[in-house]
Structures are given as structure tokens and as C-alpha cells.
């Protein structure tokens, strides 16, 4: 019993770290531009396909795959912002039209994915084969890598936002756009950079998760919906809230899968989500300004 429980907790924390990486990207974009990016899941899918290209077609290893895919996806994010969002920004009702535009982009890119890579599911090998045994607990090496890469990414993003000039500017824009403008921040440029960073986060998660699940053209919608629930649960735009929410919901997922069954994960998530909104309508750490 306790053996199972500990295994569930470990798997919950691992899930949490990867959910945190996905949700942080959504949260950053929402915080800075107040846009909910429906194309975030598609970026997750596309990076998995690019990784499949690198690994299965070109026979590259994971390290080089990361080095190639992440910058490509960063440019992808910048292009997405420049082409889809910037023409609409500051026009009437832009906060709504941009959301619909990202949804349309997501559908188009998913279909493009299907045309290019065909709808058949693809598989990636784990980053490292085999398992690690610690006393009587067994973990696959891939899970351990997911956990560490997830945690390192979170720490890196946190440091980037608090220590670097651009990171501070990103936080400034999310707190007061006019304030950011009048101190000379090029707000439009910062929007696209944030999109780029957010897509890189989706890509890290996409590549790490690909070996655990099959890669399909619609595979990004699950992580997108989960990411959305996490961001709203944590308080829209609050990065710390998002991190707490990711780990809480990751643990809930692991527990529910163990004791009740994996099909019950989503009902439990939504139930918890409704509960937290009933108690704190702006989410866990939402700002009450």
C-alpha cells in the first residue's frame, strides 16, 4: 500500500513538473499580452514532430535534437506573434479577436501537420532506456530525466524573469503596460519575445512527453486544456500560482489514477477547479486588484 502511494507521489511530482513547464508558457503569454493562446498545444505537437524528424529520420541524438528544435520553435513563436497577433493588436476588440485568431491558427497548423506527417501515430524512443532501482522503488530513467529537465526549466525561467533585463521588462509589461511604455520598453517587441519563450517551453514539454505517449496531429489539445485549467486554477497571470497548481494537479492525477482509475482524472480536475473558484474566484494566487 505505502509502496504504491510513494510511487504515485513520485509520478505526481514528475507530472507536475512537466505540466508546470507547459502552463508557464501559457501563463507568461497571458500575463504579458492578456491573450489566451489556443495555439500553445499545437506548438507542443509540432515540436514533437520536429523531434521525430530529427531522431527517426535524420538519426540524431536527443541533445542535438533539443539544440535544433528549441531555436526553431522560438522563431516559430515570434512568427506566430508577428503574423497572427500583431496585425490585430490595439484594434477594436483585439483581446477577443486575437484569441479567435490563435484558435484558427491552431486548427490550420494541426491540419498542416496531418498533411505533412500523415495521420498515423509516431513513436519516439525514451531519452535513456532502462530503469533505476532505489531500494524497492523502480523508476524509468526517462521519468527521472523528465523530472530534472522540468525542474531545471522552472528554475531557469524564474531566474530569467527576476535577474535579466528582458525578464524584468516582461514582468513590468504584465503588471502595467502604460508604465512599461513610459519608461521606454518597446512593448511590441517584448510581446513577440514572450511568445517565443512560451513556445520554447511548449517545445521542451512536447519533446519530453513524446516518448511517453504517441505523437498524433491532435495530441496537443489535451496538454492545452490541462494547461488552461492549471493557469486558471493558479490565478490567471500569476506565475507562482501556476507552479503550485501544476504540482497540486499533477499529484491529484497520480492519486486518482492509482485509487480510482485514470478515466476519473479529468472529472476530479474539473471538480477541484470548480471548488477552488467557488472559494477563491480569481484562482489560488490571482491578484485581487
Amino acid at each position, binding site marked *: 500500500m505505502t509502496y504504491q502511494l510513494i510511487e504515485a507521489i513520485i509520478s505526481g511530482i514528475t507530472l507536475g513538473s512537466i505540466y508546470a513547464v507547459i502552463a508557464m508558457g501559457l501563463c507568461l503569454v497571458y500575463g504579458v499580452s492578456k491573450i489566451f493562446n489556443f495555439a500553445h498545444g499545437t506548438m507542443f505537437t509540432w515540436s514533437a514532430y520536429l523531434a521525430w524528424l530529427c531522431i527517426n529520420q535524420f538519426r540524431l541524438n536527443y541533445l542535438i535534437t533539443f539544440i535544433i528544435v528549441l531555436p526553431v520553435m522560438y522563431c516559430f513563436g515570434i512568427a506566430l506573434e508577428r503574423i497572427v497577433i500583431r496585425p490585430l493588436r490595439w484594434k477594436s476588440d483585439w483581446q477577443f479577436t486575437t484569441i479567435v485568431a490563435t484558435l484558427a491558427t491552431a486548427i490550420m497548423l494541426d491540419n498542416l501537420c496531418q498533411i505533412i506527417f500523415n495521420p498515423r501515430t509516431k513513436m519516439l524512443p525514451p531519452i535513456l532506456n532502462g530503469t533505476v532501482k532505489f531500494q524497492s522503488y523502480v523508476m524509468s530513467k526517462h521519468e527521472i530525466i523528465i523530472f530534472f529537465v522540468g525542474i531545471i526549466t522552472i528554475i531557469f525561467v524564474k531566474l530569467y524573469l527576476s535577474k535579466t*533585463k528582458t525578464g*524584468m*521588462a516582461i*514582468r*513590468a509589461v504584465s*503588471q*502595467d503596460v*502604460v*508604465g*512599461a*511604455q*513610459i*519608461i*521606454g*520598453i*518597446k512593448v511590441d517587441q517584448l510581446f513577440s519575445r514572450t511568445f517565443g519563450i512560451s513556445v520554447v517551453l511548449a517545445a521542451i514539454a512536447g519533446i519530453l512527453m513524446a516518448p511517453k505517449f504517441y505523437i498524433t496531429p491532435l495530441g496537443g489539445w489535451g496538454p492545452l486544456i490541462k494547461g488552461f485549467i492549471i493557469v486558471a486554477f493558479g490565478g490567471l497571470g500569476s506565475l507562482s500560482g501556476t507552479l503550485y497548481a501544476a504540482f497540486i494537479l499533477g499529484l491529484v492525477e497520480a492519486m486518482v489514477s492509482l485509487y480510482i482509475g485514470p478515466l476519473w482524472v479529468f472529472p476530479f480536475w474539473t471538480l477541484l477547479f470548480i471548488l477552488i473558484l467557488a472559494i477563491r474566484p480569481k484562482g489560488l494566487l490571482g*491578484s485581487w*486588484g
Partner: protein
Amino acid sequence: MLQLEKVNAYYDEFHVLKDVSLSVKEGQLVLLVGPNGHGKSTLLKTIAGLIRTTSGSIKFRDKNINNLPVDKTVEMGLTYISEERNLFVEMTVLENLKLGAYNCFAWPKMNHSLELVFKLFPRLSERKAQIVSTLSGGELRMLAIGRGLMSGASFLAIDEPSLGLSPLLTNEVFKKIKDINEKNITILLVEQNIKLAGSIANHIYLMEDGRITYGDTTKKAMNNPIIKAAYLGKNRGAVHDLSVN
């Protein structure tokens, strides 16, 4: 240093600035007064580049800055300090000040500017690790001005710094503004309180219904019967008579 000629600007659909002309010379502290909602703040925002002009010219150091984006005017040394303060409330005082030096010319000189700001506002130095949302009204106003100074500006456009402050604090803030002006930073100050602000200004402009209706040196303005009647006397409600004259 700053010249406006027949500037027109719209706020949404409203024609707010109507043929506004004024000039600010280097080293001056110019006061812009007038009733609420008559375009004073819009004028400052237009100068800063937050609002577009439809016609007329704005020249800063003899260069046209019409419709230049805000980041460019900041780099040229023109900084706007808003009435709403627009501080980053979830960051510390120090982070706000550092961000004030965001433009590429001010960033390398950050430590020097920080020293200057802390000397001027010792209170901010005491509170530098504090989150901005925990500051008092007076401290917030000082931080807004301090952050503006961090940009290395040679020209500050300050919008109603006395808003929401007690008379005592207002006095203190005006004293600091005078100190800043004495460091050879030119200031265009928007203010309702002509009595207080008049004492530190060299020149006064009056703005009504989007037009500059009066402009003269402080000495002459204070002795002008119309200004006296409308802004300095007991009968402060009689503002609108002025536009008729």
C-alpha cells in the same frame, strides 16, 4: 527646448487639443494649469508619444518628435511621469527604479542614477527592498518621480504630482521637484494647485477647453486679475468666465 506649434490631437473621437502652441526653454520649470478634463494630461501624453497628433508640430531639441514612439522620446531624454503613477506594484522599489533606467543610454549609468535618486529621496533608499503595493501615497508619488529620473532625462513632463496627497506631502513633493529643476532638468508640470505650484514655476500657461488661453511669467500671472479671480481668490468656481474674456 520644447516647442509646440498648432498641435491638434484626438482622444478616441473627441477633439481634445485644439491648435496648442507653447514653448519650454532649457532649465525652466513651466506650469500648466487649468480645469479638470480640459486636455492638460492629454497634452503631456501627446508630447510623450502616447497619443498621436493629427496636425501641428512638436519639436524637442529642434528635432521633430511628432508621433515618435515612446521608447524613442525616452532615449532622447524626454520622460513622462503619469498622474496614475503606473508603477509595477508587485515588484520591489529597487526593481522599479532599475527598470526606470531601461533605455540603452541610461542602463550603463544605473548605479550613478540610483545614488542620485536615493540622495533626493532618502525614504526610497530605506524602502528599497519593499514591495511597491505596501508603500504609502506619498512614497508612491516619490517613487514615480524617482523612476522617471532614472531614465537620465533632461526633460520631465510631470502630471499632477499632488493628486491624492495631503497638503503637507504636496509641499514636500513640490520642494523635490524644485530640487530636480535646480539640477538643470527642465520640467513641464501639470497641476491644479496654482497657489503652491506657482511658487516654484518660472512660467505659467493656462489651458481651457483644449486651448492655451493664457501664458506669461509667474510674476505677471500672479498679478493678472483674471488669474487671481479664477484661481487664487475665494471665487474659484468662476473659471469659465475666463474663456469669454
